[in-house]
């Protein structure tokens, strides 16, 4: 009984019925954005893997990664969300809104309980863009891990400027992912004025593209936002058309 195990944390008592839990969990797993894109693993990235979501501003990079994070949290896998743009409260709001949308059809008491429990698996850190560096992040992370406060399974890094950061920072990031056996997802802001190359990658991203194991692109066409795997999917996989619902920012197929 996977779910019961997931909730039997030493200090937390949860009173959801098994059926309720299964329903909510199933819903979120179905929402797991990237499963239908032909990736091999449940978490898409392997230990030490680096992944990126590429899109223009405002298309839904953060929403997509927050759903990936919720998926990991649902499986009791701790997620560290590092934001270089937004305050802690705003990042928290992303999680709350998307979770509430996903679970909107369930009883609010049960959802609140479930959400409270999931929060144990999330940690938000924010940095100012100019003050961010990998050694600094590693120092903060070491603080948490040494005291057994938090050890992330997945890291979401939102707001890094790739054209300015250079390759060095990403090499450090990849090393860190390997060292702590984490998966790191980044958002990549692509510019509208920059036409993509044949493989769909923007020119300003090419110098670091080889460091990433998985690349996913979001593109808006008319009222729809399409999700497409650019790198890391199984060679003969069939990519089902996945969309982000522009109203809720939830994945739909």
């Amino acid at each position: 009984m996977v779910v019961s195990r997931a909730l039997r944390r030493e200090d937390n008592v949860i009173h959801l019925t098994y059926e309720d839990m299964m329903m909510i969990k199933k819903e979120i797993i179905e929402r797991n954005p990237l499963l239908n894109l032909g990736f091999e693993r449940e978490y898409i990235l392997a230990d030490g893997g680096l992944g990126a979501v590429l899109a223009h501003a405002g298309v839904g990079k953060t929403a997509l990664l927050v759903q990936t994070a919720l998926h990991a949290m649902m499986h009791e896998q701790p997620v560290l969300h590092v934001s270089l743009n937004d305050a802690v409260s705003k990042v928290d709001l992303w999680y709350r809104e998307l979770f509430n949308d996903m679970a909107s059809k369930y009883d609010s008491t049960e959802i609140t309980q479930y959400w409270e429990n999931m929060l144990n698996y999330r940690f938000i850190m924010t940095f100012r863009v100019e003050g961010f560096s990998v050694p600094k992040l590693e120092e903060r992370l070491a603080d948490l891990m040494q005291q057994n406060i938090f050890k992330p399974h997945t890291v979401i890094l939102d707001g890094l400027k790739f054209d300015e950061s250079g390759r060095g920072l990403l090499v450090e990031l990849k090393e860190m992912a390997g060292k702590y056996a984490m998966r790191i997802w980044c958002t990549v802001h692509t510019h509208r004025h920059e036409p993509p190359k044949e493989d769909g990658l923007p020119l300003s991203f090419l110098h670091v593209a080889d460091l990433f194991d998985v690349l996913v692109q979001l593109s808006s066409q008319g009222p729809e936002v399409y999700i497409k795997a650019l790198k890391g999917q199984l060679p003969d996989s069939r990519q089902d058309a996945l969309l982000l619902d522009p109203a809720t920012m939830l994945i739909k197929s």
Partner: protein
Amino acid sequence: MKFDDQKIRNIGISAHIDSGKTTLSERILFYTKRIHAIHDVKGKDGVGATMDSMDLEKERGITIASAATYCEWKGHEINIIDTPGHVDFTIEVERSLRVLDGAILVLCSVGGVQSQSITVDQQMKRYKVPCIAFINKCDRSGANPFRVIEQLRTKLGHNAVAMQIPVGLETELEGVVDLVAMKAVYFDGESGEEVRVEDIPPHLRAEAAAKREALVDAASLFSDELTEAILEEKEISPELLYTALRRGTLKRELTPVYMGSAYKNKAIQPLLDGVTYLLPAPSEVENVALDMNHHEEPVVLTGDPEKPIIALAFKLEDGQYGQLTYIRVYEGTIEKGSTIVNVRNGKKVKVGRVVRMHADQMEDVDSLRAGYIGALFGIECSSGDTFVSPGINMTMTSMYVPKPVISLAIVPKDNKAQMAMSKALNRFSKEDPTFKTHVDPETNETIIEGMGELHLDIYVERMKREYNAEVTTGNPRVAYRETITQRADFNYTHKKQTGGSGQFGRIAGYIEPISDAEFVFENKIFGGAIPTQYIPACEKGFRQSMAKGPKLEFPITGVKVVIDDGASHAVDSSDMAFQAAARGAFRDAYLRAKPVVHEPIMKVVVESPTEFQGSVMGLLNQRRGMIIGSQDEGVMCVIESQVPLGEMFGFSTILRSATQGKAQFTMEFALYRQVPQSIAEKIALEAAKNKKTAA
């Protein structure tokens, strides 16, 4: 007394702890010539700031009760309420905001938008109070007013726009450039009282021009005339610009930002100009009363001084000459000798002395007109009461009052102290709706309840100082609650035969958890299984049971009771019998409904130098805290967490020693959450122990 509503400003000064609100108030009073010397907040000169009139405030350097004062600036009358900064005293801030028309949001140029600024800002939003911002402490090392403006935009979502730029910063701070007049302003003399206006220094001209453009641009959204003037490249007069800025400010769509240093006497006078130019007169703010004769229908007040009186008592103080009631008049005029009615209890009172307050000194006046804030003597009432002319039945919108989360037993030292204590408690609970007191029927101890450790500490201290009541305090107790987690059916018969007429009542139904109410009672009985006249007795019985859980004896919340069957006896059934049956039914079902204990969880925000981030997180974690996140702010970081109140006692001392006194924290109630099993067991043991002691 002059009467020109357009020239009245009722303002508050709100901010994070230690941002310099009281220092700023002191300077304002000095420049408006209400006081003739400036005193330090921490009372180094033995006098203390004027607005901190209580001894305790002077000693601790914080403002506890807000003092109201008024002053005059360039023909305008400004009523100022100095509001407390610590979150434990938030009710004071809320009450002040309720009666104010505008506010100055004080921010520290180094600390920027801090946790308490966010709380205060939310309160201002709730009461729709327009505000201007003042970035204080520009003389401090690390001062960066433009970073603070950016934070106002990003963290608080204000459309913040600079009205000034500093001439020099940190120790070099000399004055400011006024971006409306495009002049540099300096503050000479021993206390900065001589304002010297000069041309903008050459090295600041380009920056000033750019910032003015941004200011004009922001203001143009609120004035077609200004937009036209910009398009036609006409000269923009200060009046035109101020009119546009004012419109934006009153709509709360624009926040003009002033800057300076209160402590160094820099740029307070331009801020006062800003108050008169940009904050609203009482008649420009919509105030709503509730008509009690028409199902509390909201009625917009006109602010007409000729109409019947509607006034709100927003603060009480025990002065030398009896109770002093701070009052804001919304409509009509309160005159000496006139009769007013307290809407809450219908009591008529005759107005004796009417005064205008200046911290703890006062000035007698004959009347208070609509829009004014003043104080009345000898009126018996509680904070938040509405006073009206006879024949009117309206009440001002009720204020949001949070429930206490912590309690403390207090024992008077002797009989004399007992008398003094009850007098003090009576006064405090009238003054502060978040402070409650009762006598525990089992232990016979007097219990005080409040919003935090410091909140109760201050009252105990005040009891000693102001009322000479020596008391000893017990350990603080957390306000735990019980609730149920699943449905449980009941079918209970209460039967007693003791000679004469007996007692009989049977009740059947179920209890189930609900999340959005404390108690719901639903009667689903059809066909008169329980006669209608006994239904209220059933409800009463269930309600009585909610006061104390059968096992741990904490109040129960979140229960829905549905009754759907029962039986009665023609002779032996009575109200009493059905009340007893309901209590028995509840006791019976409660334990089967899997009760759990909930504890208050506090939102704890720690601001600490980054080098202590790890140890602060460790401290929070040891206290069963859930860290929501950490925000890196350069040399400082902000750690946001949720920690059970029961684990927070003595945290300030521990935090100080772990961070060399460099970190500070704020704490406010966030939510009730279920207590982990291991802790629930401890609580149960403690409750059993207490019960034994009481017995």
